[in-house]
């Protein structure tokens, strides 16, 4: 693997090994151990559209491992507004850094960058395309809760058309034999080419527009925000905004160990009263972005993570 553009760049063995690496890095992410594996390494954070968690967790991952980060900063103050091509921007940053994390509003931008650069590219989201580093933290969270990612019933709910997190996640889950329940308004259904790919993997898929039907059998409920910024017009967005809202009372028929996940930010898909239920996992999920991105950066830079770590208190982690 030279870059991570879609989940197809990782085999199942790669995924499990990276999740194991991430597990060992938990004390480093919490600040309980210092492990300068990335000392002298520089990551270029190129975010051409807004981000809080992804950008900050890449930055945290680098710094916790002793590396450093340079940021593109606000696009409006960069050469992009002067008409610089993505190709030129990437070729230039390629010379400055050891690895690039990027997010771009246009689909395919990460592949384009990877074709333009010599250093590895980590796709932090390309339009309505893919978001594989999010998928890795999602899989980490699922495995943390259920002890496995194999053979689970997972309900993906909300904007499956423009939501890139569910595009990448669905590809990974079917490879581990999970059954998928796809719940969305008809106009926001999963794109055909993704459904075709999932079926080619022998996926067990049910498609519905009712949230309540997905709750009782689910091991994981993965809520997503309606991606307002990707709608061609405001009217179309208004017709589907707020169509799926989950509150604590809705979870009464859920299995005891079912977890509710969300890539965040949320708008009104999950009411605050769900936060205090035993099912809510979205804040832990956001934290897990740090360890999984640490593990991915090390993997792409060919840096081995030690089998055991020493904590700041002197003991073994």
């Amino acid at each position, binding site marked *: 693997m030279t870059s991570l553009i*879609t989940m197809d760049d990782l085999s199942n063995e790669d995924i499990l090994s990276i999740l194991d690496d991430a597990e060992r890095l938990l004390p480093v992410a919490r600040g309980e151990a210092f492990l300068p594996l990335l000392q002298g390494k520089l990551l270029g954070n190129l975010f051409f559209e807004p981000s809080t968690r992804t950008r900050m967790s890449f930055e945290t991952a680098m710094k916790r491992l002793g590396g450093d980060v340079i940021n593109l900063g606000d696009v409006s103050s960069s050469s992009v507004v002067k*008409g610089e*091509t*993505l*190709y030129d921007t990437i070729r230039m940053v390629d010379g400055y850094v050891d690895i690039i994390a990027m997010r*771009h*509003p*246009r*689909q*395919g*931008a990460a*592949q*384009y960058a990877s*074709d*333009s650069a010599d250093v590895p590219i980590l796709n932090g989201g*390309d*339009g*309505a*395309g*893919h978001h594989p580093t999010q998928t890795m933290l999602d899989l980490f969270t699922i495995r943390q809760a259920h002890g496995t990612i194999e053979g689970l019933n997972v309900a993906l709910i909300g904007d499956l058309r423009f939501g890139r997190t569910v595009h990448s996640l669905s590809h990974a889950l079917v490879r581990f034999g999970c059954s998928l329940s796809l719940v969305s308004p008809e106009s926001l259904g999963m*794109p*055909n*080419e993704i459904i*075709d790919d999932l079926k080619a993997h022998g996926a067990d898929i049910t498609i519905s527009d009712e949230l309540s039907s997905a709750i009782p059998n689910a091991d994981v409920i993965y809520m997503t925000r309606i991606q307002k910024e990707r709608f061609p017009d405001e009217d179309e967005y208004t017709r589907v905004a707020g169509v799926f809202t989950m509150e604590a009372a809705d979870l009464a028929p859920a299995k005891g160990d079912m977890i509710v996940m969300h890539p965040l930010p949320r708008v009104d898909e999950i009411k605050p009263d769900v936060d205090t239920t035993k099912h809510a996992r979205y804040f832990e999920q956001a934290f897990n972005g740090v360890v999984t991105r640490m593990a991915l950066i090390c993997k792409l830079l060919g840096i081995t993570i030690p089998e055991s770590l020493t904590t700041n208190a002197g003991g073994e982690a």
Partner: protein
Amino acid sequence: MSNEMSMRRVTAINNGTVIDHIPAGCAITVLKMLGIDGGRATPVTLAMNVPSAKMGHKDIVKIEDREVSQSDLDKLALVAPEASVAIIRAYSVAEKLQVNIGQEVTNVAACTYTNCVSHGPREPLPHRLIVHGLDPLQLRCHYCGREQEMGAIVDNLL
């Protein structure tokens, strides 16, 4: 009906190109792809929905005084991947060409997904469409991975 009889439906040409085994109903699209319109001075002959043992029905196009190029064949592959092409000189077949789509179509058409990165102004990397299936022809953009709308691709020729 034999192939010879179906070919006789349209007039023989002296010099030019005969494109046979075009999927039925696609002859006009083929002409559009080759940039041939009503303003042309020399004859163009079309036969549509001709019975064909190989295809059920097919279209045939004969273009007087123009020999198609390799870049024409690359475009043709998008709508008529099974087409057979003959270059005619002095009423005889001088050369037979086969459309071969291969595994990738490069710099022939732009991705039909409007938010694909390849539509960025002045971006220098080639437009790349990967062949994902042959019957029917399915193409996906190398960059964005979107399946191409084959009905719209003729409008995206480069």
